[in-house]
């Protein structure tokens, strides 16, 4: 059969990608404490333990706060930067944008270390706030990349038309530009939320004594008996991710349909 080699490759590829993730729920509901086949029996105990674990709850809450805050900060700053770079010309624009985008290619460990040194030097107490700062920094290039595309795809005359029709520059932006780049803003929020939620290195360096989900999971891997709980936690995170992605895709498609653009694919 023509192309059967490629088909087998595609299937193998998908198995390699998703089989490990499928194992998460399987072992999360397995009553044995050892992560190995054969499975012993069905149990929801690990989920109960997970809910009862106060450190884990705290780590989860911390991660949520950090991810939400850095997503909002990075997206707001991203809106300013993307708007400025797509709409205006100013001296040293390329250089400035290059510097803002640099964390994208800078090794995170370097960013984390230098941030730690600076924060300690100026005497800032390590807390989830310092993690938010770090995460905002590394999320910013992603939000700018997404939002620049959104701003660039807009016809410049739209804003001029609104201005010409009697609006001020600000109300023209609010009434015309903002609604049209909203899908981009939502994408940027989700992207930075996800990046922040599973970011380990910066959180590990800058969180002080506060646990975040990734640092908590890492710390628990040393104790074999807590691994099933981690599996349960992983299951919850996977379900959450799928839900989030579905919501994001729904809004993205609605945005495309509303503005009559061609659907150039998205997350799904």
């Amino acid at each position, binding site marked *: 059969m023509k192309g059967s080699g490629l088909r087998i490759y595609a299937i193998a590829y998908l198995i390699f990608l998703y089989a490990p993730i499928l194992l998460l729920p399987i072992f999360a509901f397995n009553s044995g404490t050892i992560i190995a086949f054969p499975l012993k029996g069905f149990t929801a105990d690990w989920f109960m333990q997970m809910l009862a674990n106060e450190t884990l709850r705290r780590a989860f809450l911390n991660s949520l706060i950090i991810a939400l805050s850095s997503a909002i900060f990075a997206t707001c700053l991203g809106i300013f930067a993307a708007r400025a770079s797509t709409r205006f010309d100013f001296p040293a624009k390329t250089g400035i944008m290059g510097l803002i985008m640099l964390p994208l290619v800078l090794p995170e460990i370097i960013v984390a270390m230098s941030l730690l040194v600076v924060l300690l030097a100026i005497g800032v107490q390590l807390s989830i706030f310092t993690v938010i700062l770090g995460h905002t920094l590394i999320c910013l290039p992603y939000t700018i990349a997404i939002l620049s595309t959104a701003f660039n795809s807009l*016809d410049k*005359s*739209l804003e*001029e*038309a*609104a*201005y*010409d*029709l*009697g*609006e*001020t520059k600000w109300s023209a932006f609010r*009434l*015309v530009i903002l*609604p*049209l780049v909203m899908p981009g803003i939502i994408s940027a929020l989700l992207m930075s939320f996800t990046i922040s939620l599973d970011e380990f290195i910066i959180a590990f360096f800058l969180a002080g004594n506060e646990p975040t989900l990734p640092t908590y999971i890492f710390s628990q891997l040393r104790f074999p008996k807590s691994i099933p709980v981690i599996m349960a936690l992983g299951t919850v995170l996977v379900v959450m991710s799928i839900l989030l992605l579905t919501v994001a895709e729904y809004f993205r498609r609605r945005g495309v349909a*509303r*503005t*009559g*653009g061609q659907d150039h694919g998205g997350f799904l």
Partner: protein
Amino acid sequence: MNDTIKVAAPATPARKPKAATRYAELQASKPMIECREVHKYYGDYHALRGIDLTIREGEFFSLLGPSGCGKTTLLRTIAGFEGINSGVVLIDDKDMAAVPANKRPTNMVFQSYAIFPHLTVAENVAFGLRRDPRSKAEKAAAVDEALKMVGLAGYGKRAAHALSGGQRQRVALARALILKPKVLLLDEPLSALDRKMREQMQVELIKLQRQVGITFVLVTHDQEEALVMSDRIAVMFEGQIAQLDYPEALYSRPVSRRVADFIGVMNFLPVTILSEDADTIRVDVEGLGEIDLPHSQVAAKGADDEQPMIGFRPEAMNIFPEGQPQTAPRQNGAVIDEVVYYGDMTYYDARLDEADGTLSAPVRISMRNVFGRDIPDVGTRATVGWSPSSLILFR
């Protein structure tokens, strides 16, 4: 100041302007837009080089020129999107220097139409009424009326992004006209439409303009569009107005070779000037022989290079198979090089007999096709008939 900027009043147009009564009325109406010595620079680039013009209330005025000639810059200057470096722009006798675009009594129809894709048709049209103190019902009635005016009655609830190009254009018109501006600015409004739609919209735009009586300023690079729609046309090259005239005068009496070349097709044949007196100039034209031309047939600004030229339009000559009787005052033998058939018209490329037995440079002649009359063949000999009164001397 460059002397090519000042444009004399049309020197006795060869034909009367179309709707002469309309233009007489317009001349009596007050100036709506006045530009005086307007200069605009982009960095080192001198985009507008001393524009002087007066556009009258109720006039359909066109800025015509090739891309990069400054016509769009001039329009955006009037709209207030671009500042000027020196000079004055007056709209309705008020200096616009300190008035931003959103406070000017102008509205613009953009080349891309700039329809807000996230709003419905009615929301688009009502966009400029946001600060209007009228009640909701009154505004809705105004929107309905505006949509009716542009032929989109009942389209209010549709999503703007689902409209065709022609419909978007109409929404853009309704959105601008609902504010009853003193001046409507149109930036190449028809360039995105297909030919048929464009011709239809040209007629509709004229009707609409007559109906609302608002001053229209149109920017276009399409000379045909400008000729069809405008009361007057300013032809622009390199940031200057080369000629400002009625369409008929522009076509039949271009002031320079460059304008002649830009508007329609113009044949050029080199001439030798033999003698000149108070009434006429005697010239020897390649292919046409010796002719006496009155001074009224000399273009104001002449040729752009040294060689004097005679110019004439393709329809200024007739062409028939050799031997057929003709009534034209002057006749020449010619050889047909090319025949291009357009259905209603045929274009011929022909070379005229010279006195010494050689042939002239090719000229293009157009003839309306008549049923039952044969179209001369390529390679055959023909007789070309013409009249000295249709020639223009560029020197």
